[in-house]
C-alpha cells in the first residue's frame, strides 16, 4: 500500500492504494468517475484515455502510484456542469458517436491534439486518433466533430453539420 495524492479534475484526492491498482480502476472504482471506459484492457483501443499532466495516456496501462503528485483530467472535467466543451458539442452536432463507448477516450485524445495543433488537417486528425478504436462510426463523423471543435476553439465559422449522403 502507498499513500498517493492525485488531483483529478481540479480536486486533490489523498488515499492509500495498493501498488498494483491501475489508474483506470482508481478513476472508475475509487473515485466513481465512470466516464472513463475500459475497452480492450491492453492499451490498444484508447477507451480509457485521460490526460496526465496534460498528456493523453491510456489509463489501463498506468499504475495509480505512477500518477502520485500529478494532475489528471477525465471526460467529466472537460466542461463545467451544465455546459459543453467544443468537442462535446462537436460530437453531438456531427453525430460523432453511435454507441458512445469510445467517445470519452476520443474526446480526451482530441483535446490534447487540439491543444498542440489547433488547426489540424484531416490527415493529422486521423493519425492523431490512431490510438483510439471506434467500431460503429467509420470515423468520418468523429473527424468532423474534431474539425468542428477546432473551428469553435479558433473562433471561426463552424463547418456544416449536415450529414453527407453518398
Amino acid at each position, binding site marked *: 500500500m502507498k499513500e498517493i495524492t492525485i488531483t483529478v479534475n481540479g480536486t486533490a484526492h489523498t488515499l492509500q492504494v495498493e*501498488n498494483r491498482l*491501475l489508474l483506470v480502476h482508481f478513476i472508475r472504482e475509487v473515485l466513481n468517475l465512470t466516464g472513463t471506459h475500459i475497452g480492450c484492457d491492453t*492499451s*490498444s483501443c484508447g477507451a480509457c484515455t485521460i490526460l496526465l499532466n496534460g*498528456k493523453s*495516456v491510456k489509463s489501463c*496501462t498506468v499504475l495509480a502510484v*505512477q500518477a502520485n503528485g500529478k494532475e489528471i483530467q477525465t471526460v467529466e472535467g472537460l466542461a463545467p456542469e451544465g455546459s459543453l466543451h467544443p468537442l462535446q458539442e462537436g460530437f453531438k452536432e456531427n453525430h460523432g458517436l453511435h454507441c458512445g463507448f469510445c467517445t470519452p477516450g476520443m474526446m480526451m485524445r482530441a483535446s490534447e491534439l487540439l491543444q498542440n495543433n489547433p488547426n489540424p488537417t484531416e490527415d493529422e486528425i486521423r*493519425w492523431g486518433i*490512431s490510438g483510439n478504436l471506434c467500431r460503429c462510426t467509420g470515423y468520418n463523423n468523429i473527424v468532423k466533430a474534431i474539425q468542428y471543435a477546432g473551428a469553435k476553439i479558433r473562433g471561426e465559422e463552424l463547418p456544416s453539420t449536415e450529414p453527407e449522403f453518398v
Partner: protein
Amino acid sequence: MIPAPFEYDAPTTLEEAIGLLQKYGDEAKILSGGHSLIPMMKLRFASPERLIDINGIAGLSHISEENGTVKIGALVREVEAEHSDLLKKHFPIFEDVTHLIADPQVRNMGTLGGNLAHGDAANDHPAVMIALGATVIATGPDGERAIPIDEFFYGFYMTALQHGEILTEIQIPVPPAGTSSAYHKLERKVGDYATAGVAVQLTLDANGVCTAAGIGLTNVNPVPLRAARSEAALIGKTLTTETIAEAAKYASEDCSPSSDLRGSEEYKRDMVAVLVKRMIKKASERILI
C-alpha cells in the same frame, strides 16, 4: 487484468535507484514508460516482486549535442524524439520511426531507453540504433560504462545490462555531411509490431560513392540484427540498381525470421529485401535534397 502484487519504489536519484537494484537483484524491474512491462505484468507473463520507478529521477530527459555526439537521456519519450529539432537535423530516421511506434498515447509514455533495455527484437529503436552506430551508456555501482550497440543485445529479452546497472543514456555520433537515414516497417495496422522493419543510414561522397553504411533489421531475427554483408556490399560503390539489389539479397539471406501470424518466413525474407531497397533509396534521396 490486474498484475500480481509487487513492492514499489520511486527513487529520486540515480544512486538510490542503483542501490535498490543492487539490494533486490533479479526480483526488481525498472519501470520507465511501462508500456511493455505493465502489459506483460497484467497478462502475468512477468511478475517482478518489486518495481523501481525511475520517472522521478532528474537528468535523464535531455537531447543534446556535445563534441560530435548526440546524447539522448533514457527517459526521453517517443513524442519528444518525434518533435526534437536536433534529432530532425541530424537523423531524419527518428521522424520515420517514432511515427510508426504504437500510437500517440503510448508515445506520450514510452521511452527510448526502455525501448532498448526491454531487449525485444520486435521493438523498432534497436534496428535504428544499429544503423546509426549508437553506444548505450549503463550506469551502475562503479559508475558509467559504454556499451557499443552491437554488443548490447544478447537474446530474447536479454541485454548486456548487468546486475545493478541502469540504461541512462544513448549516444549517437553526429554523421559527416552527405549522410542521411530512413526507416520503415511493414505493419498490419497502426501500432503493430513489425512484420519486417529496416533502418538505413548512408554517407555518400561528392561522386555519389558510398563511404559509410549502417543497416539494422527489426523483428526478423531472434536479436536485432546488423545486416553486415549488405553494408559491405554498398561501401565503395555508387548506388546502382544492381548494388542495391545485392545488398537487399544479403539482408534477406542473413536474417532468420520465424513464420507466425504476421507472415511466413519466406514472405518476411521477401519483405526485408523490398524494404532494404526502399530505405536505401529513401535515405540516398534525402542526401541529394
